[in-house]
């Protein structure tokens, strides 16, 4: 009803601004750093997986773009249970290496 047009809020600009900001946040990450993010993700995951059993989804990387410089934020989620087993892992890996060495020398 045209009669009630005046009831409609006219300030659509804040909506535009908010939509643009969230969209561009996403697109900047996608476009500017797509290769870098993929490479970093793969390599960081490999390093962590050497010590702690970790899933692909548990390592998150994002870039916060600033005017002068940007922040690369790496977020690694490790379940407490894995942390507890991590030292055992490292220990057992060393023991295994020692055993391998011993076997090699004994030959």
């Amino acid at each position, binding site marked *: 009803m045209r009669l009630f047009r005046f009831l409609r809020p006219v300030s659509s*600009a804040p909506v535009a601004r908010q939509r643009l900001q969230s969209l561009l946040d996403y697109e900047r990450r996608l476009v500017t750093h797509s290769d870098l993010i993929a490479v970093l993700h793969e390599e960081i995951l490999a390093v962590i997986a050497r010590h702690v059993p970790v899933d692909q989804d548990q390592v998150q990387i994002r870039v916060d773009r600033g005017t002068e410089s940007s922040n690369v934020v790496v977020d690694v989620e490790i379940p407490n249970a894995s942390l507890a087993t991590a030292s055992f892992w490292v220990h057992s890996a060393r023991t295994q290496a020692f055993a391998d060495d011993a076997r090699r020398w004994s030959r």
Partner: protein
Amino acid sequence: MAKVVVVTSGKGGVGKTTSTAALGAALARSGQNVAVVDFDVGLRNLDIVMGAERRVVFDLINVVQGTAKLAQALIRDKRLETLYLLPASQTRDKDALTEDGVAEVIAELRVRFDWVVCDSPAGIERGATLAMRFADEAVVVANPEVSSVRDSDRIIGLLDSKTLKAELGERMTKHLLITRFDVARAASREMLNIVDIKEILEIPLLGIIPESEEVLRASNLGAPVTICGRDSAPSRAYFDAARRLAGETVDMVIPADKEGLFTKLFGRRAA
């Protein structure tokens, strides 16, 4: 040695050609030698906006391919003797532009002029990337509207990665030029305002060109608005922007068209 400036936007119809002509003429007005170069091969328009459409003999492609000399293709403006136009070809397409060819033309223009203003085609393909390729600075033209701001952001990304300057690890200087700005609608929050756009795009502001019928009038008459409507609001805004481009500090005000009593009483349409 000239400063090479690319006028770009990603989105079409936001005012790249109008702004190239207006800034070029404003810079030439101060006595400096200016060349405006149309990179929109196949869809040239800088010639018609500047009123030189009937004087085009040779064009950018001829010079790039060596079938004409630069001096033969340059058209001197009839009103400002320090202003020159290098038109694009209308019959060819963007594939006729080669990177080496463009590099040579720009290098030659650098020696002869104080300013080389390159009018980029819309889009992010060959024409647009070659227009920005050898630039020292960029003017990003945006309208206070979501699609234009989004495309400008994409162009800023390309300026920072695909230009020669960026590849050499140098910083590309970028300026934001907001065109078709409506002060009243922005004030009532119907339209994105200057702060919104500046904060989203994060590049410094070169100027704010108010929406005005003088811009259409100037293009109808075939003259940059800084030549034919010199006292109009958009013209004054372009003169300020040109001074800022040249390094001057000028207060950021949005000029308004002066309204006579008759227009105030009866509105513009009545006249």
